[in-house]
């Protein structure tokens, strides 16, 4: 309980501290960390809990981002409506892609199929210039005053933080629910799960749809932060990055992906200011982590904590 209060206080004070001692840029970076954390957490419902190696999560992130952008720019709909519609469109994408993908058993084929679908959407957005502006992207997306980032990222930070916390809380509820338990059973042992009377495809489809929904929220948030969007949000490398966050942070610990997101976003930002080969370092760290601590950083911390405090008499 007191840990929660402490974390909440820290998260609330963080941008103020950043504003005093550093620059606005770091608040912007903190916003990015929040958004990627939400994205990585949503993704982990599919991989960590559902055992579905999706290599196409950029599709859901991008669908959220483009729905948000297009509705704000072309239709000029009010932001709250748009912000609800964006994840719904993303979830619908998850439903359609999932409908075809969950039939497939085996991680490799699942990854290839989801990757193909996301590339399909990427190409569509890239080529459909009249509707999506193609690779020019969309700039100057109107953002309501209360989260405007013109003067300061402070308001947006709190907005993103509250949205992400609500989403992560809901994800936590799902993983703890009976549904979450059966979903994990499917990851552990699909055959056994079928023989307790479960049509696993339906559970996986539901999990992928929920995962896509929250990824769509992350996509909408990034648009409101950047006030612009380009087909890059749909690139396969975005799907790759979110997988790496899960691996690095640890996908078997609920908050693991957040650890991965923090490290990746910060490393990305700092390394790019020193070298253009930042991806080289990220790659190195990942190889190291997969070889020596496949359970991820959060996984290691969790295990050592268990060893220290929960030593069972045996």
């Amino acid at each position, binding site marked *: 309980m007191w840990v929660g209060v402490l974390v909440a206080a820290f998260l609330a004070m963080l941008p103020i501290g950043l504003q005093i001692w550093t620059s606005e840029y770091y608040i912007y970076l903190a916003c990015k960390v929040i958004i990627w954390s939400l994205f990585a957490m949503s993704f982990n419902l599919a991989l960590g809990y559902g055992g579905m190696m999706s290599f196409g999560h950029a599709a859901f992130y991008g669908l959220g981002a483009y729905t948000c952008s297009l509705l704000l720019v072309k239709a000029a709909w009010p932001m709250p409506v748009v912000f609800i519609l964006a994840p719904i469109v993303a979830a619908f994408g998850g439903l359609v892609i999932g409908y075809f993908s969950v039939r497939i058993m085996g991680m490799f084929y699942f990854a290839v199929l989801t990757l193909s679908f996301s590339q399909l959407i990427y190409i569509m957005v890239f080529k459909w210039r009249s509707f999506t502006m193609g690779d020019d992207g969309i700039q100057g997306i109107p953002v309501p005053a209360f989260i405007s980032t013109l003067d300061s990222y402070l308001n947006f930070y709190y907005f993103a933080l509250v949205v992400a916390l609500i989403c992560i809380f*809901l994800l936590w*509820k*799902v993983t*703890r*629910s*009976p*549904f*979450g*338990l*059966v979903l*994990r*059973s499917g990851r*552990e*042992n699909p*055959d*056994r*799960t*079928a*023989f*307790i*009377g*479960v*049509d696993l495809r339906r*559970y996986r489809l*539901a999990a992928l749809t*929920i995962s896509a929904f929250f990824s769509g929220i992350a996509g909408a948030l990034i648009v409101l932060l950047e006030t612009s969007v380009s087909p890059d949000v749909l690139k396969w490398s975005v799907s790759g990055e979110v997988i790496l966050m899960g691996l690095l942070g640890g996908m*078997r610990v609920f908050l693991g992906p957040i650890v991965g997101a923090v490290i990746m976003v910060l490393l990305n930002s700092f390394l790019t200011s020193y070298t253009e080969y930042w991806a080289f370092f990220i790659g190195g760290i990942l190889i190291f982590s997969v070889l020596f601590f496949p359970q991820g950083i959060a996984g290691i911390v969790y295990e050592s904590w268990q060893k220290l405090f929960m030593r069972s008499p045996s």
Partner: protein
Amino acid sequence: MPVLELHGVTKLFGGVAAVADVSLSVESNQIYGVIGPNGAGKTTLFNLISGYYRCDRGRIVFNGAEIHGLSPYAIVAKGIGRSFQVTSFFPDMTVWENVQAAVLVKKRQSWSLLSHDSQASRQETEVILGQVELLDKMNDTAKTLAAGDRKKLELGIVLGTGAHFLLLDEPTCGMSPTETTSTVDFITRITEEMKLTILFTEHKIDMVMGISSHIAVMHFGSIIASGRPADIRMNETVQQIYFGD
């Protein structure tokens, strides 16, 4: 009144009949043993009954309704549970979660996404863990259990599905004589207590003779003899195959 009936069930793998024209019928509350050497088609037979494979020919009737052609999960819903030769459970979940997952599915509560597990499911899980003697280990991670306890856990999962008809594929596979004896006692006891019907395979012949009320002998995919344990023991063909004289 038979609970399970097989009529001319056949399964071909590339032209070879792994199960050839098998007919049998299992009465309620029976412990029915299927014996036979390795490769006789026992496991294939179980995979056919439980819906893992589709029959190429024949009919499978359970409680008066045809079940061949149904998916495994639909067959579980009819009340047939199965265990595997290589004990199958959820290794990284706790013993409690292993059984509760099955209970939640049976109670049709596994689609509640934001709620907690129900009181009723917790009570039932506790009862089952008591029956399979794993209450004291309920918070252990399943993969830390010893072979005998794993088998009990798998039985707990099967009981959690609400099944009263159990298909047990070599329930004492890989166990020491002591473990075998205690597992056999255990199976006999819960069959009695819970009014179960059991169809099981085994190649430890003494064990089968000891607990079965009826035995069928499989050889090259066919049933070559069937009857009470005493009859089987006297059967000449069976003696030739099994005892080698």
